[in-house]
């Protein structure tokens, strides 16, 4: 083999080597990409399912104004619902012997103010026309709760359970209205327990 032939041969070898390196680099890149993809996938797999809700929200879409109203009412609703349950438990505790007649008065009188305040806040809300009826129904529930609280405390004066019964009927009626509004505005309010 002559020296004259050596250069082109070397060049040919260099071209081959270069091509080989290109193939190796491509393969390495592919392997790295695959490894990264698998690592990412594995990370995703151990994510908790917290984002998935048990129930789908099937209510019709609300307008922006309706959504604002629903959110504002939710803030009132949270207070009302707790006050309503507290009123019920004031009566239950009394009937279970966990408090005397005076304790009913002590526990329920402040709740009358909560229902009154809630009604005042509700009336001040900017409700779109489509939500006027909902607002009126909710206001009706608040009035029922308010009346129930006023009737209920009469037991502290005369010990007559008839007041409790009358108040309970009004309260349960109001609670039914709350559920109906909840189904319309916040269908996911209560979850499987």
């Amino acid at each position: 083999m002559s020296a004259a032939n050596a250069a082109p041969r070397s060049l040919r070898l260099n071209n081959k080597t270069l091509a080989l390196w290109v193939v190796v680099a491509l393969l390495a890149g592919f392997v790295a990409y695959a490894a990264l993809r698998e690592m990412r996938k594995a990370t995703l797999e151990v994510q908790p399912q917290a984002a998935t809700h048990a129930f789908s929200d099937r209510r019709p879409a609300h307008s922006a104004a309706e959504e604002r109203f629903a959110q504002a009412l939710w803030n009132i609703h949270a207070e009302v619902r707790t006050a309503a349950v507290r009123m019920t438990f004031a009566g239950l505790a009394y009937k279970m012997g966990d408090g005397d007649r005076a304790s009913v008065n002590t526990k329920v009188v402040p709740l009358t103010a909560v229902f009154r305040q809630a009604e005042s806040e509700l009336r001040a809300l900017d409700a779109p026309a489509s939500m006027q009826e909902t607002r009126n129904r909710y206001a009706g529930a608040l009035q029922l709760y308010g009346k129930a609280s006023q009737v209920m405390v009469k037991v502290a004066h005369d010990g007559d359970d008839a007041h409790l019964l009358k108040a309970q009927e009004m309260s349960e009626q109001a609670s039914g209205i709350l559920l109906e509004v909840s189904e319309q505005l916040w269908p996911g309010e209560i979850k499987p327990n």
Partner: protein
Amino acid sequence: MKKQMFKALVGAALVAAGVLSAGTAQAQNCSVWLVENSRFMKVPFGMFHPDRSYVQGSTDARNNVNTVDLPVNVGVIKCGQELILYDNGWNQTDYHKATGTEHWAPLSQQIAQLGFKAADVSKIIIGHGHWDHAGSLDEFPNAMLYVQAEELRGIEWALNYPGHERIRAHNFDKGGCNRTPACGYPPKTVDSIYGKVLRGKAVIVNGDMEIMPGVKIHAAHRAHTAGSQLLEVPTSIGKLVFGSDAYSSWEAIRDWEVANIQQTDSVQQFLAYEKCYKITGGYQNCVAAHEPLSYTDKYPLTKNSWVGMNGGRLAEIALAPGEASRKK
């Protein structure tokens, strides 16, 4: 004289026999059915049964199920002339529509499929006071309600908790109240319970109680809620124990895993499981409230099942002597 003495002795013997037999009233076997009041669809498995959380791509049968459909099971128990319900579902039609819940029908109509009238229900034992287990009380005005005092006191304690608002939150946000102590008791449900109390139609139970021969309430406090309670029922196939949400999942009882941990103390839930093992001799006769395998061969106690109104399923679990099948 002798004749009179003889008559007196016979009379005394009869009275004594009567007194003795009354004192040792024998437990009679009861007939038992299970009714699917509704079915919560596509609940993430891990939310219900944490040890069965879904892992994407997993080939392990325990972790490759993403969502499950959960029945809301109600026990219908007939002991002699007494008709007893264990739990009583939920009756808000619009709520069920809004949330995609299926198979629901009013419980009074569902038990009518078994030939029972709502007016004939004499006792309702609620395993706990959550809305989906104590939500149809108004449909059964004649029934005496049995609820643990601890259940009611537990809610009141939480509502009046003086510290952080998260503890006393009745419903923290839309769907976010899970596991706060007073969560799961909407005003309507507690008003219904209170109505029963005011009308003299409630027994507030402190701990264990035998409500009729062989039919026993067992307190299981904090096994799901503050005042959870179980019900032991004698039947021709052995004793059954109903557990409401203390026994949410039958597979979890079998495998000793927690399930549906709302206000649950996991140790107390395990002790409630143990109670069933002790009373029935195993896990087969533990009656679960939300077991996804209900009404199938995979939950053998409930396999004798059929489909009723609105696709809701029923199972005939045990028949007392002389009781005809009500399976249709």
